[in-house]
């Protein structure tokens, strides 16, 4: 295969998936976050009978509806790409992805779709309690959808519960529960959902602050800020806790991603967490002696504590993971890239021999080759890699996205605390500077939300499935011109959708609530 063409096809296919996933992720967090907020507001209406809470809930429901209508089905675009741009991957993981995505469609989406019609159109047709139940069911449906998608993504990061069948070339699910409730999936779910809650809260506070700036609908704005601020503060604290959980899981299962997140090239015991740092652009090779940092401020021992629950634990750096030889948590010695690649190549050779044996009817030989594949399957992906650098993700991108995301997370804890303080002292309505900060903080929330996914997905490169399948083996042999064409088509289509969303939403916000 033409190496240059393949590299271009891989990059464009990755770029297309990133583009469409990024656009999809503009709509989803607001759906998840606003769903909870509007449910809380409607609950207050039903409990207090205060019509103003009903009007408040209805306004945010309209905003939810705009976002939902424009965002709905944007995720299906990603599935289109599986079948065309990522056909090898699609067959390889079909048995694993099929179950969670089917459950997502049948259970979660139908739950959402059924109750959403009652929520939007049933205000005068059903009782208060039935309507409230419907609103919470929509929230539950949306959240369940997120869970099953994240189960699929979690399996990519840490493949378990399967056996590879060289006859069907599929990873066949042998333990549904191992996949469905993997620690990675559970942690990813909490971190992703709470970050969406935080975004929803930031959005509500920001938009409400715009009304305060304009001195319009101030009662509505202050009610909305009251709920969203408390919800936001709780959310960002939960984000921090689940983020800690993420660091722990990543340390155990994807040490190279952690090393990239922290710009850690040489491992150490009692490793500190970089709070702020500037990477040295002169660091070009993972194994040169150039200092990776121009400067950094570290919190001593925190990386070891977060990663291994032991302040003096050894945290491997990029060079250690490539060279191997350090002691793992289970007491065994880490393999080097070369050793992993040897095992991967053994598996690949056995796969070729298996194919030959099967075609010649030599079933006993085929069974023996299958055993060799299974014994070396954990390193199957390394057999596609040529050199050490192939197993290293983009460190600057992963590092900066991670640190920006964490910085913004810390900012929002402070932000919501400050807004809550001024709101409780009834000083917020006159604090114009804070209102403007709140408005522009919406952008920060969206950026942090996107950057989190960049960390998760760029940090796992070159893998589509950790250690098992790198991107260059996963991609189809589709001509790169086709991928470029659809990339441009998607860029245009999604931009139109985004412009429509922003236009319609701004119009509705300017119109204001029915107060």
């Amino acid at each position: 295969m033409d190496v240059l063409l393949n590299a271009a096809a891989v990059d464009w296919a990755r770029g297309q998936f990133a583009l469409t996933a990024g656009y999809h992720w503009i709509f989803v967090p607001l759906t998840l976050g606003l769903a909870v907020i509007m449910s809380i507001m409607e609950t207050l209406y039903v409990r207090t009978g205060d019509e103003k809470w009903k009007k408040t809930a209805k306004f945010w429901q309209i905003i939810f509806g705009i976002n939902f209508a424009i965002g709905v089905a944007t995720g299906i675009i990603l599935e289109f790409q599986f079948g065309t741009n990522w056909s090898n991957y699609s067959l390889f993981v079909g048995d694993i992805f099929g179950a969670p995505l089917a459950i997502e469609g049948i259970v979660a989406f139908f739950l959402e779709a059924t109750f959403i019609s009652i929520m939007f159109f049933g205000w005068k047709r059903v009782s208060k309690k039935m309507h409230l139940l419907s609103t919470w069911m929509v929230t539950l449906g949306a959240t369940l959808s997120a869970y099953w998608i994240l189960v699929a993504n979690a399996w990519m990061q840490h493949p378990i519960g399967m056996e590879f069948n060289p006859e069907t070339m599929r990873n066949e699910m042998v333990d549904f529960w191992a996949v469905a409730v993997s620690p990675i999936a559970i942690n990813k779910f909490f971190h992703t959902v709470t970050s969406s809650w935080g975004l929803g809260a930031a959005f509500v506070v920001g938009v409400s602050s715009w009304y305060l700036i304009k001195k319009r609908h101030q009662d509505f704005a202050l009610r909305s800020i009251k709920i969203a601020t408390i919800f936001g503060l709780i959310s960002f604290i939960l984000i921090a806790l689940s983020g800690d959980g993420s660091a722990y899981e990543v340390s155990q299962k994807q040490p190279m991603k952690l090393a990239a997140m922290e710009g850690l090239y040489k491992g150490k015991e009692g490793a500190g967490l970089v709070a702020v740092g500037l990477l040295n652009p002169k660091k070009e090779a993972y194994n040169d002696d150039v200092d990776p940092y121009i400067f950094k401020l570290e919190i001593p021992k925190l990386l070891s504590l977060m990663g291994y629950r032991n302040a003096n634990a050894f945290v491997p750096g990029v060079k250690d993971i490539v060279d191997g030889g350090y002691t793992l948590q289970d007491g065994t010695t880490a393999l080097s890239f070369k050793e992993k690649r040897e095992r991967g190549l053994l598996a690949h050779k056995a796969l070729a021999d298996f194919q030959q044996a099967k075609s010649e009817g030599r079933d006993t030989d085929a069974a023996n080759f299958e055993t060799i594949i299974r014994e070396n399957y954990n390193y199957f992906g390394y057999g596609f890699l040529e050199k050490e650098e192939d197993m290293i993700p983009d460190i600057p991108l992963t590092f900066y996205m991670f640190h920006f995301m964490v910085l913004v997370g810390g900012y929002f804890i402070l932000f919501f605390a400050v807004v809550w303080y001024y709101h409780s002292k009834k000083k917020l309505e006159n604090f114009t500077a804070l209102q403007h900060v709140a408005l522009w903080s919406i952008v920060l929330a969206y950026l942090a939300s996107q950057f989190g996914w960049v960390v998760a997905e760029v940090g796992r490169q070159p893998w589509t499935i950790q250690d098992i399948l790198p991107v260059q083996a996963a991609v189809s042999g589709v001509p790169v011109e086709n991928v470029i064409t659809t990339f441009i088509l998607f860029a245009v289509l999604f931009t139109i959708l985004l412009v429509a969303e922003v236009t319609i939403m701004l119009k509705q916000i300017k119109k204001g609530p029915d107060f």
Partner: protein
Amino acid sequence: MSKLSKTLWIIVIIKLIIMFAVLKPIFFPDFLKSQVNDESEKAGYVREQMIERSSFDSEE
């Protein structure tokens, strides 16, 4: 139905038509299906792709 509802429904319907009637059939065919004669050959095709892309070719 309010003007907003109508607008959103129109956007949803147009979006779904574009996605399923234009993008999927024209730009996103099932690649594997196009490379094989029937379902049973898909595994063989992917196996050959994996073997071809393996770096053990460069070892020999």
